[in-house]
């Protein structure tokens, strides 16, 4: 058998290429560094919250179960129970999801598939503008317009309510959902549309049976990001929630979601009180993780 392949030779790296490889290696490291930097800074924050928030339970003997299931929150009397807030957060998020997601997705579909190009070209950036309006102003709008509107039209004694929170959050989710979902829907290959239409499917049928399922990953991202926006929102919610410490039993009850609790009292909180607010943050974070997990599961199920 031939001998040549046995004497292994090496192509020496050309001088001009050596620099490229170095750059290549270096850039790979830089990219990795950037990815790590983002992850690290994010982990730092989580760590910070956990460190602060776990202190009362680890070092001061507070019971975590009492914290989660307690009905009373009176920091000045050393009572820290957040059950009503957990319930409020759940309801508020679900409500915003039920209201905001369909409207946002339908708008995205409309812009990507149905609207004339010229119309879409005006509306899409305008919707993005909504994303830039500070949440305080949404709160002001909610407090000065939505709250009195509910008061007057539903005959309530106070418009600050779960319903007001849901409305404001749903509105605030819109720009994120619309923008991200629209991009995803536009990226669906044309051949799917053509394939469906050529089978005599109606345009609407095509959109809902083929295009939207094909854009699923992007749509899930839209929902997750929009939901993140809604869950993390405080400034607007503080103004319209009423922040009462009762277990909500109807849409018209005023409520205090977890986020609001943190932002509302952080300015004056001290010692254990402050740590308990961080503990609220832990609960909130777990809540988000769980929700995203569920969404991811739903997303991957639909794919098969």
């Amino acid at each position, binding site marked *: 058998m031939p001998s040549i392949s046995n004497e292994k030779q090496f192509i020496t790296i050309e001088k001009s290429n050596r620099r490229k490889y170095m750059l290549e290696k270096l850039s790979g490291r830089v990219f990795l560094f950037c990815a790590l930097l983002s992850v690290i800074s994010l982990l730092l924050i989580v760590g910070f919250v956990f460190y602060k928030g776990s202190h009362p339970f680890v070092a001061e003997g507070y019971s975590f179960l009492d914290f989660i299931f307690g009905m009373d929150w009176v920091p000045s009397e050393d009572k820290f129970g957040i059950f009503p807030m957990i319930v409020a957060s759940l309801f508020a998020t679900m409500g915003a999801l039920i209201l905001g997601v369909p409207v946002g997705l339908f708008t995205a579909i409309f812009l990507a598939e149905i609207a004339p190009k010229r119309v879409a070209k005006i509306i899409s950036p305008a919707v993005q503008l909504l994303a830039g309006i500070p949440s305080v102003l949404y709160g002001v709008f909610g407090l000065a317009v939505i709250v009195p509107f509910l008061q007057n039209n539903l005959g309530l*004694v*106070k418009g600050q309510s779960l319903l007001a929170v849901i409305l404001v959050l749903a509105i605030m989710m819109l720009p994120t959902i619309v923008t991200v979902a629209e991009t995803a829907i536009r990226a669906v290959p044309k051949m799917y549309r053509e394939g469906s239409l050529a089978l005599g499917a109606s345009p609407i049928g095509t959109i809902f049976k083929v295009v939207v399922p094909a854009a699923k990953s992007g749509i899930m991202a839209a929902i997750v990001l929009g939901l993140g926006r809604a869950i993390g929102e405080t400034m607007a919610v503080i103004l319209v929630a*009423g922040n009462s410490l009762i277990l909500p039993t109807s849409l018209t009850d005023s409520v205090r979601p977890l986020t609001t609790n943190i932002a509302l009292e952080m300015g004056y909180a001290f010692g254990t009180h402050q740590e308990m607010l961080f503990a609220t943050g832990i609960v909130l974070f777990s809540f988000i993780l769980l929700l995203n997990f569920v969404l991811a599961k739903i997303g991957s199920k639909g794919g098969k």
Partner: protein
Amino acid sequence: GETAGNDTGSSSGSKATVSISGSTSVGPLAEKLAEKFKDKNEKINIEVNQIGSSAGITNATSGVSEIGMSSRDLKEEEKANGLKETIIAYDGIVVVTHPSNKVKDLTLEQVKQIFTGEVTNWSQLGGEDMEIVVVSREDGSGSRDAFQEIVGYSSGELIRNAIIASGNGNIKTTVATNKHAVGFISFEYIDDSISTLQIDGVEATAENVLQQKYSLSRPFLFVHKEENLTDAGLQFIDYILSSDGQTIVSEAGAIPVK
């Protein structure tokens, strides 16, 4: 171009900066005092940050700020950190309702009954037959602490479905848009979008507070650590306590110390 002039030559090295941070209710007053003070002392710059009493106290402790502003009394642990407090003014607290509300005068006892939920209808207080909506500040707020202490109920006794608003402005907006509502705000923010109530027949004015006829008030505090206080900082505190300073305090709607 215009702004460059307003920059008051901050680049000149001789300028001293006093950093102050803390309560959002003391903040606006401190800003007004600082503006007048800077007009007189070109060489001193004063930075006022309104970030909440606790954050201000923390900053004063850690040295991030030279002076902290607080609208609540210092806790024992905070005092233990070596913080000194100075009362720079008093803040009157007034009970407010929607302008359409016929009730204009309450006793301190009635106020307590409202906020603890013993009385839930305005008709029980001589007003229209409609539900009372209580608006309070958040737990830990200086005004709320003072209000509760003077009226005589504790946080745990506050009616559970009370609306909790953060800041005087939010209480004001809430009360101004709801004819059922009653809340309390600081004198500084009184305007005609809300109506103010007399307590035991006494009107809520600075004068009545000074004459101790009107009891709803609390101190505005500056806190600092002795070792962090600069000359410039000291000068500013002295200025506030001077008669010039106290005039500004009363012009701003707060109550002078003397």
